[in-house]
C-alpha cells in the first residue's frame, strides 16, 4: 500500500510535473491511481482545487469563466489581461441563467460581473 501523502504535497507534486512539461493525462492517471489505492477518491475535487492553487503560485492559472454566450478571442485576451497570469487556461461554461456579463472563478477568488449577480445584489438591497 502506498504511503499516505497530504493533499497539499500531492498538489505541489502535480503542479511541478505539469510545469516540467509532463503529460497532463498521464499525471492525472497517476494521481487517480494513487487516490484509488489510498481510498481517497472523495478528495478529488479538493485536490483539483489545491492543484489549481499550486499552479497559480507558479503563474499558471486555470480560470472558470461562465457566460451566457460563447466568448470571442478578443474577450478571452481581455480576461487574460485582467487575470495577469503568465499562462492562463480558461475553462468556459455557457450558462444562460447568468443573463449576460461574465463570472470568473480563480483559485482563491471570484469576480462576478454577470447581470444575474447584479440583479441579485439589487434584490439584496431589500429592507
Amino acid at each position, binding site marked *: 500500500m502506498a504511503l499516505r501523502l497530504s493533499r497539499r504535497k500531492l498538489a505541489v507534486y502535480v503542479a511541478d510535473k505539469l510545469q516540467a512539461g509532463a503529460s497532463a493525462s498521464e499525471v492525472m492517471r497517476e494521481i487517480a491511481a494513487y487516490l484509488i489505492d489510498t481510498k481517497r477518491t472523495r478528495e478529488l475535487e479538493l485536490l483539483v482545487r489545491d492543484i489549481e492553487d499550486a499552479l497559480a503560485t507558479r503563474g499558471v492559472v486555470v480560470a472558470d469563466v461562465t457566460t451566457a454566450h*460563447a466568448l470571442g478571442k478578443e474577450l478571452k485576451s481581455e*480576461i487574460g489581461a485582467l487575470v495577469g497570469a503568465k499562462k492562463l487556461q480558461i475553462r468556459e461554461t455557457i450558462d444562460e441563467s447568468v443573463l*449576460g*456579463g461574465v463570472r470568473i472563478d480563480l483559485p482563491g477568488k471570484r469576480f462576478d*460581473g454577470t447581470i444575474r449577480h447584479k*440583479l441579485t445584489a439589487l*434584490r439584496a438591497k431589500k429592507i
Partner: protein
Amino acid sequence: MAEAAGGNFFEALGIDWKLLVLQTVAFLVLLWFLAKFVYPPLTKMLEKREADIEAGVKAAQEAEQKADAAKAEMDKLLKEARHDASDIVSTAKEEATAAIEAAGVKAKARAEQIVADAHDQIEKDVSAARTVLHNETLELVTLATEKVIGKTVDAKVDNAVISAAVKEAK
C-alpha cells in the same frame, strides 16, 4: 245668793253647767285622742309628702339643670359638629378640586401620550409602507429587467457587457 245668782246666770243663758263640764271633759278627751293618735301620723304623712314634694322639686330643678347642661353640651357639640362639618366640606372641596385638577392633568398627559403614540404608529406605518413599496419596486424592477434582458441581450450585446465588466474589474 251669789251661787244662786251664778246658777241663775247660766240658767238665764240656757246653759247647763254640768253638761258644760261634761262636754268640756269630752272635748279634752277628744283633743287628747286626736293629739295622741290622729295628728301624729297625719303630721308625719304631711311632712313626708312635703319632703317628697321638696325632693321632687329638687329633682326637677336638678333635671332642669341637667337638661340645661345637656342642652349646652348639645349646643357645643352641634357647634363643634358644624365646625367639623364645615372643615370636612372645605377639605372635601379642596380634595375634590385637587382630584379634578389631577384628573385633568392625567387626562391631558394621557391624551398627549395617545397622540404621540398615534404619531409614532403613523410614522411606523408610513415607514413600513415605504419599505414594502421599496422592496416591491426592487422586485418588480428586477423581474422586469430579467424579462427584458433575457429577450434582448444577444451575443453582441453580451460581448459589450462582458468587455465593460472586465474593464470595470481592472
